[in-house]
């Protein structure tokens, strides 16, 4: 009985989180404001991206910059698969001929896009998972640059650095809400699965985890490709919301925004991912509105550009200094007091964490 109760306690936050997503969606559609509708739709797509980052970074403790590149793969693949023959003729004139006549339904295309990104991630990421710390971060950064360069130059698939347009706006608020719910549940399930538990063990102590027989590289690799799938899926949804985009959309600016959401909320928890996404979206939209109001009313003698990003960056630095684990750091909301948590143990001979820095 006790274990059943513990299990219920452990998972009781999940329905609350799901209900929260639904409540936000319903409230938005009751208001019926077009702008609000668009903001919330993008927020849910961003939420899926943040969850994608969370699945890998939160559970493995490794930072990855590469995920937005997989979002790009998902976006382009699904776009090529849903566009009509004429639209492709205009938007991607150099497209491989065999791809031109192919046209499949929207969600199927998003799935295929996510699967393609997953295969790419699976093929190239395994060796990177052996690395830790600086080396691991630099190589995921390198991966992002490589994916970006390829997207921006493969004219026969992506129309090169130019804008791809003419997608149909299949993604609306209900679609985004539905998939946000699916992926919140998926990220939750992943974290609490046996695989997630093992991965979190390796996060707290890589060597101890290896000692009890866990294949850390393989665990990280699995999480990485799950993460790539989620981000690519979000990419497909996003592409069919925004309907025109260029490779520049899948690079450092978005990486920064999504990382900010993840860090502010707390990368280790699913509740944190949701909280971070909501807070940063609200902050971002408020600042954007303020910025454009100032520009429209000519309150200052010059055009303000970049104010939003400046303030967000300052906010992020403050959060990192004051609360480096994010708002919801270790325990999911409502999960009650837990058992004792193992302190991370540094193996002897290596510098203790936090000492030198």
């Amino acid at each position, binding site marked *: 009985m006790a274990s059943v109760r513990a299990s219920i306690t452990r998972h009781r936050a999940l329905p609350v989180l799901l209900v929260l997503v639904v409540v936000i969606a319903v409230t938005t559609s009751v208001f019926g404001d077009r702008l609000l509708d668009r903001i919330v739709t993008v927020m849910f797509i961003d939420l899926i991206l943040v969850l994608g980052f969370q699945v890998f970074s939160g559970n493995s403790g490794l930072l990855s910059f590469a995920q937005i590149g997989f979002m790009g793969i998902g976006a382009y693949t699904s776009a090529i698969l849903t566009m009509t023959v004429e639209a492709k003729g205009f938007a991607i004139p150099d497209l491989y001929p065999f791809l031109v006549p192919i046209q499949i339904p929207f969600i199927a295309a998003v799935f295929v896009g996510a699967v393609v990104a997953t295969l790419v991630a699976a093929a190239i990421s395994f060796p990177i998972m052996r690395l830790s710390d600086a080396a691991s971060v630099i190589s995921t950064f390198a991966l992002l640059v490589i994916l970006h360069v390829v997207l921006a130059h493969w004219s026969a698939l992506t129309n090169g650095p130019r804008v791809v347009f003419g997608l149909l706006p299949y993604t609306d608020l209900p679609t985004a809400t539905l998939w946000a719910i699916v992926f919140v549940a998926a990220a939750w399930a992943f974290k609490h699965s046996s695989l997630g538990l093992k991965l979190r063990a390796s996060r707290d102590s890589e060597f101890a985890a290896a000692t009890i027989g866990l294949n850390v590289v393989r665990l990280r690799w699995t999480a990485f490709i799950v993460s790539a799938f989620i981000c690519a899926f979000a990419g497909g949804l996003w592409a069919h919301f925004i309907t025109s985009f260029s490779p520049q959309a899948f690079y450092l600016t978005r990486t920064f925004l999504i990382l900010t959401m993840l860090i502010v909320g707390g990368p280790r928890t699913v509740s944190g991912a949701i909280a971070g996404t909501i807070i940063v979206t609200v902050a971002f939209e408020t600042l954007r509105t303020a910025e454009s109001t100032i520009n429209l009313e000519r309150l200052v003698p010059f055009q303000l550009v970049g104010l939003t990003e400046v303030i967000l960056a300052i906010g992020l*630095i403050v959060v*990192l200094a004051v609360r480096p684990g994010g708002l919801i750091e270790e325990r999911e909301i409502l999960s009650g007091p837990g058992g004792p948590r193992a302190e991370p143990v540094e193996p002897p001979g290596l510098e203790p964490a936090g000492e030198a820095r």
Partner: protein
Amino acid sequence: MDAEFLAQFALNALSLGSLYALMALGMAIVFGVLRLVNLAYGELLMVAGYTLFVLNDSPLPWLFVAGAAVLAASLASVLTERVAFRPVRVNSLNAMLITSFAVSTLLQNAALLLVSPRTRAVNVPGLLTQSLEIAGLRVSVANLITIGVSLSLLFGLNLLLRRTTLGLALRAAADDFPMTRMLGVRADRVIAAAFAISGVLAGVVGLFWIARVGSVVPTIGAGPLLIALIATVIGGMGGLAGAIAGGYVLGALTVGMQLLLPPGLIDYRDAFTFGIVILVLLVRPQGLIPGRQSARVG
């Protein structure tokens, strides 16, 4: 391939390599003391560039303006350390990394906000755009000056590191920081000094980088950042010698790829170089010249 071609290649590779070596060194010197991959490093070049732009119309001789630009980059570097990195230093490595990413975004957007998103032309002394004929070779003056300045900077830095107390502290800190602190070296000072030197190097590189293009944009730091990253990885992140070696290897690789890659693949040059990075990390994670200290974990 005739001798002339080879000489031209060697000269170009040496010039570009010197520049890359300086970039990598600026990155490595901070990595040495903090284990921080400073993603805001490229923005220091941008600071130097905008200082040049602001002083475009000043009556001062160009060398003074250049000096001011280098100084500004160094100040910016120290300031970011004081304001952003010091408060998060005790937290995880990832926290510091993301902070540097945030600082990079912050500086870039500050430039957007305070100057303009558009390209701004910068005065470049005519000397830097001329070229000479030496023994039948066309040699650009900028290349020669780059080589000269880089080599003297490397030499000067070597003296600083080998002959001064600060240099000793910096080298010791790069080797084993906790031990260095136990011996009574003030961590804050060493770190601030490392950032100051890093800023000077970024500033000097910025001068040459911007002189090549003749203008500055908020995103100008991205290229140099990537180069510095690649060079430090190829050379080895453990020590400073590795960074220099990595810079020269990358310079030669870049010039070589420009000459040898078929035209259709030149566009993918960055993807190739980053592919090399990942390869190096996998096959020889310690780089060409491994530092004395082993990596923290893994």
